[in-house]
């Protein structure tokens, strides 16, 4: 089944052969789905967007490791 790795260290994921990789721009490796300096509601909205992006990545056909950005 398709899997997507959500990580800021996308090059590492590519090298180990993960095929679908989502790189979120506002988070860090300490908290891939979090942006603590946003107010809670805005952070939640950002997170929802990141999850939507992750699901969209799962729906993409890929040939090999590919990095998608959010």
């Amino acid at each position, binding site marked *: 089944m398709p899997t997507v790795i959500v990580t800021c*260290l996308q090059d590492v994921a590519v090298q180990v052969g993960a095929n679908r990789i989502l790189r979120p721009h506002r988070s*860090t490796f300490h908290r891939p789905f979090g942006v603590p300096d946003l107010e809670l509601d805005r952070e939640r909205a950002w997170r929802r967007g990141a999850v939507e992006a992750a699901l969209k990545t799962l729906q993409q056909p890929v040939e090999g490791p590919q990095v998608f950005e959010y």
Partner: protein
Amino acid sequence: MNGSVNHRELCLEVHEHPVTAIVFGDKTVLEGTRLTVNVADIRAIAAEEDALADIEVAVARPGEAVRIIHALDAVEAMTKVAGPGTVYPGFLGPPLTVGRGTTKKLTGMLILSTTEFPEATSGGLGYREGIIDMTGPGQPYCQASNYINLVVSYKPGQGATNQELDDAVRRATLRIAQFIGKTSVNLAPAKITKYELAPVSPDLPRIVYIDQIMSQTLMTRTFIYGQQLVDSLPTLIHPNELIDGAIVSGNYKNLQKVATYLHCNKPLMKELYRRHGVDLNFVGIVINRGHRDTFDLKEHGAQYAAKLAKMLGAQGAVVAFEGGGGATVDFMLTVKACEQLGIHPVAEMFEQAAVGSGEFPIVYHVPAADAIVSRGATSEMITASKMDRVLGGSHRLVLYGGATVIEDASQSFAVATDEYWGVNWQLGESRFVAREY
């Protein structure tokens, strides 16, 4: 660059006073190569810190059946007798630029601090135990095992937090190291070495040393002139500053740690200095903090470090690795950035897969890393020998990130070599390499 600067200003004379024995007595004094320590003097220095309740002092010699646990740092006993500043600037005195004048060092020995942190730790803020075996099959894997260690074990004061204890132990240990260093003050040194990046032939290849240093949060800190090296930009440093103790370790992540004495004696710095004017021109050191938070920041740090190297006119760079898995990215990006600027990089690192596992030894790499020196693979199962004495605390030893408890730390037990204190760096010093079968 080298032709036009007067290097007399950046010259450091180091006087070496070798120590072959440490005994306890009524007066702290160095006689020949024998150091006598009055424990009351050491206790008085520690007593200056509120967060410390008491100390115990012991001596561990190379080859003795001694295991040291709960080790924090190992520090050279030294003092400055001429030139601006003090040794360990920023801690023992104001952060004036050091690396000039004259410094006296007691060689062959270290002050080794141990303590047990009162608050539980976990995750990135966690203390990661490492053991020092002074003899046996584990000995080549430990930093400090080739020195006579004056082991100072600190008992935390009531109510001390981990950070307060950490800072107090560091300050006390550095002061003790300077105090012991002062025993050499009116004595003639066995050896004098002049450290100076003097102008050399323009034909010699210009080589820079790019040192990746780890510094994150409490338990993984590294200090430069007394300040934590946090999200700072890469910077230049002169090797003489390292020799005088400008970089101090507060890193208790066992595998990745570089003890303070090793910062003062960085092997690549020593090697490049030795060959300066012989077959190369050592143009200086760039330090770059690894473990930056995002890929973009890692790339930024890498490019900035390479740019500094380029501004020094480097033709070749030795890039040394320190850190865990994620820091491999910072490291390899630095190698790539050097190549992109026309600086020939050599990557000097330990291997990240266990011996014989068949796994690829590097977590992340770039095509530019086509010249790699391997310090060897850090994880191999050996049998740690039975010891006569355990120093540094109670007998109970907690290894493997908390998953294994050894009730009697003096016993022999099966251990992975990556439980040894500072193994990632020590492998290189102990002349290991890994070969493929």
